[in-house]
């Protein structure tokens, strides 16, 4: 029965962690995949890709800065796309690039794109021509890449002219001139003891706000807040696991006082008895984790695809480690009682 309760708690922990991972990975893949060292936003965009606007003059200033090795434009536009033979629209992010992100080849020809593999679930196949946005801009899919989604929408990686054409045709309010990009991806080392970010922002006279890739990921809307909120709930749930394990092992220990007394009388040491209690807690936690994992996997399969649940190996490892730790600490609550078992009185009580 205690194992059943812990199994549900393990499912809860995996489910909460899976949601957090799904939200994080599905929102940030396109940024995490960047091979540059920093991302340059226009000042005033508050580090928002969709609001940032880098002109040719600013780009020239960045390129000429000391310690800058390579610069590439990057831009996103979020749209619906018609997929051949499908009635449902697919959510896509058309991403224009110059420096290829991880797994993405060199920029393709106009109106061609490399799609994130998550779009396969929405019916996108190799060689398909999807029609993007109200203007039905055509993009032919010439390959797939993993884990590059942006704000929960499947990325389609295209060259910058195609991105501009798609954006200008479908979002005239966000139209950009031929030499304008949303942001710059910059490779470099910095110079004169200053970081690359400082070098870039100085070179543009603070017309830019430059972030490392990690900071740019955290600057995406909601990413930081989601992480903090879910982490709080997950750690609180671990405390509940600890309390539940502590509770049940304290009850079990009380029930076995007589038995422990007999074992002590025949020479078993306190440490040996306690090791047995801890071992039991570990076994219960392991069984609960396995059952909870199966439940979580079942729930993930049963839930609609729109729920951003992603169960990844590291989440299983983290949850298992957390459960084990909580189980060991919880079982330690009964240590005091095991230590205080008096063989003579315990046997007397038990008989």
């Amino acid at each position, binding site marked *: 029965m205690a194992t059943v309760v812990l199994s549900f708690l393990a499912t809860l922990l995996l489910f909460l962690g899976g949601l957090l991972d799904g939200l994080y990975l599905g929102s940030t893949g396109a940024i995490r995949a960047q091979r540059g060292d920093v991302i340059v936003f226009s000042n005033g965009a508050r580090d928002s890709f969709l609001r940032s606007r880098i002109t040719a003059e600013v780009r020239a200033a960045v390129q000429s800065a000391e310690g800058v090795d390579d610069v590439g434009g990057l831009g996103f536009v979020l*749209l619906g796309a018609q997929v051949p033979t499908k009635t449902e629209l697919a959510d896509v992010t058309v991403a224009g690039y110059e420096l290829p992100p991880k797994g993405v080849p060199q920029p393709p020809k106009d109106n061609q794109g490399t799609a994130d593999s998550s779009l396969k679930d929405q019916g996108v196949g190799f060689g398909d021509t999807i029609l993007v946005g109200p203007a039905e801009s055509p993009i032919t899919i010439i390959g797939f890449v993993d884990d590059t989604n942006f704000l929960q929408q499947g990325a389609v990686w295209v060259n910058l002219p195609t991105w501009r054409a798609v954006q200008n045709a479908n979002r005239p309010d966000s139209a950009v001139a031929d030499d304008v990009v949303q942001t710059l991806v910059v490779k470099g080392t910095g110079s004169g003891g200053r970081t690359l970010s400082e070098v870039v922002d100085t070179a543009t006279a603070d017309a830019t706000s430059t972030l490392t890739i990690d900071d740019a990921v955290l600057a995406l809307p909601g990413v930081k807040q989601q992480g903090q909120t879910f982490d*709080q709930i997950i750690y609180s749930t671990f405390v509940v696991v600890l309390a539940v394990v502590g509770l049940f092992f304290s009850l079990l220990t009380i029930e076995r006082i007589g038995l422990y007394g007999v074992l002590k009388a025949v020479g078993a040491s306190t440490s040996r008895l306690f090791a047995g209690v801890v071992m039991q807690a570990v076994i219960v936690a392991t069984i609960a984790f396995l059952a909870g994992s199966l439940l979580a996997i079942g729930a993930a399969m049963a839930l609609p695809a729109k729920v951003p649940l992603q169960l990844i190996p590291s989440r299983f490892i983290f949850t298992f480690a957390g459960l084990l730790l909580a189980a060991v600490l919880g079982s330690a609550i009964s240590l005091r009682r095991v230590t205080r078992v008096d063989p003579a009185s315990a046997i007397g009580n038990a008989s």
Partner: protein
Amino acid sequence: MMPMFLALTEMRRAKVRFGLLAGAVGLLVFLILFQQALLSGLVNQFIGAIKNQSGQVLVFNEQARRNLDGSIILAPQQAAIAEVEGVEASAPLGQATFTVTAVVNDNDKEIDAVLFGYVIGQPGAPTSLIEGRLVEAADEAVASEKDRDAGFDIGDVVTVEPDGARITIVGVARDINYSVQPVLFVDFDTFEAAKRTRNPDAEAILPSVIAIKVATGSSAAEVAQRINEQVDGVEALTRQEAVDGSPGVSSVRTSFTVILGLFYLVVPLVTGLFFLIVTFQKASALTLLRAIGAPARSLVWSLLVQVVIVMTVGSLIAFGLYSVAIQGVSNLGVRVEVMPAVVTSLVVLALALLTSMVAVRRVLRLDPLLATTGAGVAL
């Protein structure tokens, strides 16, 4: 009297056990309360502006998949919508996020704000005004009550960056946030100017959706259906459909429903299991009590009193934790509310009493005769 005496005496003698159970229940109920508040706060903060505007029907671009950010309505579509039977008034409603500078404690502070641009006197105006007035001219705005202290109170001036319009707050409304960000309802010309400030290359500023007032004698659902049948490339939704269909809202609801369901399952399981084990452990004592004349009813009441006390203490601990934790998510506009906490506590109490029936059944099956044979402990 006897049930209460038995229950309290046993609890006094086993403070750690009962304390741990009350603590575990407290944490679990706290997590339920916190997540319920989070869910309602998140949903309100995501779509408050759609829920509390006057358009009874909102017409999106079909390609936008009910997402305001991805929707634009072309001029021919707008004209066609106005001609549909049952449309009394239709007007553009624009939405976009901007960087604005607000003044907080005499200091300029850049923050994100969502501008909703509507045509004055037409559908799309905020409906939950609590102070001040609606917009009557360019460069005026109605802001959210929640953001008053962030430089969005009546009389405050916010500047659209870079170097754009200076907008004066003339009214505040309740629950009009969008995407968990401050909202300013402005007239459409102010919205258009803000978009051109942000992007001088903009070729045209198109409305995100068309807001519709439905003519007397027609329902919003009927009008939405007619628009979908008669106008190409659009998706008309009633206001409630637009709220429920907003990106993120339904997935957030589904996710939290599963999480809350699991928590509601765990609380009574933990409680039921605890009391079952305790009943097993004190079986001999209970059998003896039965043998010396204690009625089974008293023993059952004693057990149920303990369940109620543990759940009440747990709920109080939960409410304390919830009151503190809610301060950490005050940016979602969630407030400490007693009634939802009481309802949740009563639900988990009922569930705990239900699962304790297994222990009650065990008590009722005790045979007093076994006390005389010494077999009462053989459980």
